[in-house]
C-alpha cells in the first residue's frame, strides 16, 4: 500500500494518470505496491503467467523476445514514468516477452484486483486510465510497425537481395 507524498508526486507525472485528481490518485495508490529490482534481475520471462501492470519509477527495464537459443531481440527500453506488462493483465494470456532490469530499478505494481477496484469505485478515473492506455497502445503499434519495417530492411541489406530489380 503506497500513499507517501513522493509516490503521489511521481504518479501525478505518469501519463496513465494525467487525468486523475489528488483523491483519485490517493485511492489508486492504496492498491499499488513497490517492487525493487537489482541490476540484471529478471522480473518475468516470456511464457510466464501474470496479471499485473508495472510502472517504472526508477531505472530502466529491458523488454526482449526470444529469437533463437540464447539470443533475444530487444523490443523496447522502458524508462521512468512508462509502463509495461499490461497485455497479460488485460487478456490473461502468458507474458509475451521477458522483462529484465538493465540497471537497478524500482517499479510500482498494480494487480488485477486493484484495477477492478478502480473500475468499481472510480468509473470516471478508470475511463481516463483506459483512454490514456489506448493512446499509448496506438503509439506502440506505430513503433512496432516501424520495427517490422526496420527488421525487413535489415534482412534485405544483410542478404543483398535486390527486390526492386525483380
Amino acid at each position, binding site marked *: 500500500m503506497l500513499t507517501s507524498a513522493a509516490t503521489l508526486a511521481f504518479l501525478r507525472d505518469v501519463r496513465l494518470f494525467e487525468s486523475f485528481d489528488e483523491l483519485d490518485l490517493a485511492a489508486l495508490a492504496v492498491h499499488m505496491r513497490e517492487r525493487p529490482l537489482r541490476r*540484471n*534481475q*529478471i522480473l518475468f520471462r516470456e511464457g510466464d503467467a501474470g496479471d499485473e501492470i508495472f510502472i517504472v519509477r526508477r531505472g530502466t527495464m*529491458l523488454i*526482449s523476445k526470444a*529469437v*533463437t*537459443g*540464447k*539470443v*533475444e*531481440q*530487444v523490443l523496447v527500453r522502458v524508462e521512468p514514468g512508462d509502463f509495461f506488462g499490461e497485455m497479460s493483465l488485460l487478456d490473461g494470456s502468458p507474458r509475451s516477452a521477458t522483462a*529484465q532490469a538493465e540497471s537497478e530499478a524500482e517499479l510500482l505494481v498494480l494487480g488485477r484486483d486493484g484495477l477492478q477496484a478502480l473500475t468499481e469505485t472510480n468509473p470516471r478515473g478508470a475511463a481516463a486510465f483506459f483512454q490514456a492506455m489506448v493512446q499509448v497502445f496506438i503509439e506502440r503499434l506505430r513503433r512496432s510497425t516501424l520495427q517490422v519495417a*526496420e*527488421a525487413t*530492411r*535489415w*534482412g*534485405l*541489406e*544483410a*542478404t*543483398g*537481395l*535486390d527486390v526492386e*530489380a*525483380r
Partner: protein
Amino acid sequence: MTDRPAPAKLELLVRRDGEEDFELRQVASLVGYINSRPRRVDAGSFEISEVRSGVVASRPHFILKNTATDRYLLLSTPERFLWDQMNGSTSLQEMATAYVLEYGEFDFDIIPNLIHKLQHAQLLTLEPRSRLRQALARHRGRRVARALELALTSLERIRISSLNVHGFFQSLYRWGGFLLFTRVAIVAGIGLALLGAAAAVQLSREMRDVLDGFGSRPVLGIVTVKLLFFASVALHQIVHGLACIHYRRRVREFGFTFLHGFVPTFYVDVTDIFMTSRRARVVTAVSGALVHLVLGAAWFVVAAHVPVGGFTQAFAAASGIIQWQALVLSLYPFCFIEMDGYHVLVDVLGVPMLKHDALAYAKRLFTGAGRIRRGREEGLWIGYVALSTVSVAAFLAFNVWIILSATT
C-alpha cells in the same frame, strides 16, 4: 539526389551461462552481409563458357547461362573468379580477401554488383550451406533432426567477441607489445628456441621415463596440458593483432567461437593487413605462430632442469611437445586446414584458391569426372592433396603414439 539511410541495426540480447547475465549487441546489416555465404545454383543448372577476343590480347570474358531460365550473363575474369567461390561456405569477407590476394587491389562495388546480377538471373540460392545442414533441413519433421539442427545452430552462434578492440591492441602495443617486433626480441627468441631444441633432444633420449612422471593419472595430466595450451591460442591471436598494429592497420575484432560449430577457438580479425605489403602479411601470419615456438622452448628448458620422472617434468615436456606441435601445425601449409602457413604459401604462390581447386580436381579424378592433365597448376593441386593426406596421417599417428606412450 536522395539520402541513403544508415544501415539498419538490430539490438540483440545474448544470454550468458548465468541465469541473468547478458550482453547487448548492436548488429548492423553490414555485418550480416559480409558474413553471408552466397551459394550458386547446382552444377546442372548452369553452363559457363569462355570468350576470348581474337583481336585484342586481354583477359577473357565468360558467358554464364542459367539452363533453367535461359538467361545469360556476361562475366569478366574477376567476376568469374568470385563466381567460382560462391560455394555456400565462403563468406563475402573471405571472398574479398581472396580477391585482394589474386588481383592486388579491391573494387568495392564488384561483389554487390555481381550478387545483384546473379540474383536477377536466379543463379544464387539461399539453401543451408553444408550437406549435413541440407539433410537436416529436409527432415525437419523428425524430432531428432530438428534437435540436431537446433544444437548445431546454437553452437555456431556462440560467439563472444568485441568489435571495439583496436584501442585495446594499440594500448597493448604501446605498453610493451612493440618490443616483440625488435631485433632484440628476434635474437632472444632464436636463443630460447636453440636452448629449447637442445633440451628437447636431451629429453627425447629418455622420453618414456619423462612421460612416466604422470604416474597413475596420465589422462588427467594430458587434459590439463591441453587446457593450458588452449590459453596460449588466445596469446597466438593477440600477437597477430599486435603485428597488425605494428604495420599501422586496424584490428577489427577479437573473440571466441566454435569453428564449424564444434571446434572451440579464439580468433582475431586482421584482414586490414591485406591492404599493405606482402612482407607485412607474412610477418603478421608468422608472428602468432612463433608464440608456440617460444612457449614450447621454455617448457622444454623447464623439463630439462627439474627432477627426472616427476609430474612437473612430464607436464612441462608434454606442454613443450604440444606447443611445438601447434607451431608446426600453424606454419605447415599441407594439412587441409587454412592455417597461418597456408595463407603465407598461397600469398607467395599467388594462388588464393589452392585448397578449393586442389580438392575439386582430386574429386573429379576420383569420381572419374576428369582426367589427369600435365601442367604446373595440376601438379600443384596433386602435390597439395598428396602432401596434406600424408601429413594428416602422420599427425594422427604421432598423437596416438604420444597417448599410448603416456598411458602404457
